[in-house]
Structure formats: C-alpha cells, structure tokens
C-alpha cells in the first residue's frame, strides 16, 4: 500500500529515477489538475444555491457614480423631498474621502435612528431606513432595530424583496460591522449604480454595528426587524 512493490527495496546508490522530465510528465499533470479544477469549480459554483459567485459582477466598487461626487458636499436635507419632509433632521456629511460616498458618524446615525423610530411609532412608517449589509447569521445575532437585511454579496437575489422600501426612503443608511468591514461602502455604491437608487439618499454609517453596540444603542436579535 505505502510502498511501490515494483521498486523496493530502495537503493540509495543507484536507485531508479522516479522524477520525470518537466515536459514529459510533470507539466501535463499540472495542466490536467488545473483544467479539472476549473471544470469542477465553475460547475460547483453554478449549481450551488447559496454563496455562489457571479463572475461578471464587481463586488468591490468603491467609488460612487460621478453624479454622487457632485452632490456629496451638499447637505442632503436641502435637496428634493427629503428637505420638505424634515430638513431639520437631515444628516450632515461626516467626512468626504472624495469617493462620492456620503458618510455619517455615530451622532448623526443616532439622530436619524431616533427620529426614524419616532416617526415609525407615530405613523407606522419612516423615511429613515437602515440597511444591514452583513451575512444573515450576523444580522440575526443583532442588528439596528428596524434595519432591513440586504447582504452585499447576495444583493442581486434580495433586492426585489426590499426595493419598494428602499425607493420610499429618503435616508438610506447602510452599515456593516465597522472597523475593517467595507461591505457597507460596496453596497452603497451598488445601490446607486447597480440598482439605480438616488445617490443623494444613500449614506454609510462607517462605525457600524460594533460602534453602535459600544455606545450602548439598542439592537434587535433574531430575524424580526424590530
């Protein structure tokens, strides 16, 4: 089993030479392994139900469409219907790394959350919508109350379920865990460019859920939004 019976016992001095030439034996084997890997890999990716990768999609868009860059410096509360609804609660851009993505710091996210919850309690709806870009397990482990789940890497399959809510909201605030997590940035760009939502309505809360919990803000555990 372990030893090749045809070549035992080994003879250090004049043993046969098992290594084959590079072109004669090794490289064809390398190509065979690579070809089989590609065939099996692509086939497995195409049939898996969850977690498949869309080869054509760029999951790592980091720069918003050019029209967002033009609007990123202005106070979104001064634009369109959002200002008509409640300009006093409009978020302020925390910083602008010149990528066209509007960012909120903790205080701004907190203000929007409180106002949104008050609106929801009063009328049953709100123009503030938090969007959780993380994987489902993380969402169920704890999310900002009222947040919808839109996992960035499966957003193509999930967008239809939440599109109407996204289109009704004037302040779409996307978050993930914070820290090194960039999925909220990628999703915010996709919401603008891939799903054609108004760029001026979309914000990223970069502190994410880690900061949210550190600051003692409430979270909802489980699949229910609130």
């Amino acid at each position, binding site marked *: *089993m*372990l*030893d*090749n019976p045809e*070549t*035992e016992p*080994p*003879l*250090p001095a004049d*043993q*046969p*030479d*098992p*290594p*084959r030439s590079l072109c004669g*034996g*090794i*490289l*064809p*084997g*390398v190509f*065979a*392994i*690579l070809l*089989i*890997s*590609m065939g*099996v*890999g*692509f086939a*497995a*990716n195409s049939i898996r139900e969850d*977690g*498949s*990768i*869309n*080869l*054509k*999609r*760029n*999951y*790592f868009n980091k720069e918003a469409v050019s029209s967002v860059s033009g609007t990123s410096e202005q106070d979104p509360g001064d634009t369109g219907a959002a200002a008509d609804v409640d300009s006093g609660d409009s978020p302020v851009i925390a910083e602008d790394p010149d990528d066209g993505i509007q960012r909120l710091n903790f205080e701004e996210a907190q203000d929007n959350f409180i106002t949104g919850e008050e609106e929801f309690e009063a009328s049953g709806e709100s123009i503030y919508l938090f969007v959780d870009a993380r994987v489902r397990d993380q969402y169920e482990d704890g999310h900002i109350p009222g947040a919808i789940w839109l996992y960035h*890497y499966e957003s193509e399959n999930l967008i239809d379920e939440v599109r109407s809510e996204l289109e009704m909201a004037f302040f779409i605030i996307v978050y993930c865990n914070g820290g*090194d997590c960039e999925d909220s940035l990628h999703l915010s760009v996709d919401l603008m460019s891939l799903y054609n939502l108004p760029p001026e309505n979309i914000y990223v809360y970069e502190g994410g859920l880690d900061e949210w919990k550190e600051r003692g803000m409430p979270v909802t555990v489980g699949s229910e939004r609130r």
Partner: protein
Amino acid sequence: MGSIRRLDATGFPLLLARLAVGITFLYYGAQKIADPIAFLKSIEAYNLLPTEPSWIINGIAVVLPWTEVLCAGALLSGIQLRSAALLTSGMLMAFTPAIYLLGSSLVGTKPEFQSLCDVIADCGCGSGAIPVCPKLATNCVLLVLSVWALVSRSTRFRGGLIPGVG
C-alpha cells in the same frame, strides 16, 4: 549532500511531505469551498489583484480552492504526485510573500499591531483571522516539504496512501 540523499532514500521525508502538505491543502481547500465569498473577500483584501475585469478575481476565488483540494488528493493518492507538488510549491511561493505583505501593511494600523508578529489577520487561507508570524513559519515549512516532494528521488512511499488508490 550524501546524508540528504540517504535521508531521502528512506522515503520518510517524502511520506511526511505528502501527508503534511496533502492534509493541510485538503483542509484549507475544503474551508474555502464551503464559503467562497469569504475567500473572495480575503483575497481582495490583499490589494494585489485587480477588481476589474471582475472575472479574474472572481474566477480565482471559484477555481483555486478546487485546485488545492485536487492537489491534496494527488499528493495523498500518489497520482500525479510530482505535478501536484509543483503546483503546491508554486501556490506557497505566491501565498507566503503575499501574507508577509498583508501583515506588513497592517503594522501600526491598530495600537496592538506594533510589529509584524503582533498582527492578526485573515490571510484568506481558510482559517479566519490568525497571527501572521506563525502562519508565515508554517508556510515556509510546508514550502520546504512541498519542494521535497517535488524533487525527491525516493521510490519508497511514492504510491497511494489509501488502500486501493494509486
């Protein structure tokens, strides 16, 4: 050189190389296959591959884990052993400097990351966030073993390690 040849002729270094590299690649390849999106995210974090055109980085995330598993199968079964050893050596030679660069880029980004050996990062190896230095050391050992499997002239332990295979 003579002592190395005698050691090689015993076949045990080749056996160790096949088992260590084969089992490692099998385990980490399976982890990546189970969650290809996590693997895609981690290889993007290296900032070494272009995200446009997207099929390059996405294709690597889809294919590379299967290459690792097939190489592991070849190393353990003895079928195309040297071809698999060449591939694992190539992968380790590519991964190890990339992990070093990733770890170096993270030095100083957090208060606790004072030096390379303080850095804990997800190297995309399928093991989640781990200390970088032990990972580099492990990879160097695996690289030596993988090259050994490639160049070994031993005829012992060259067949299948599983009954009836190879």
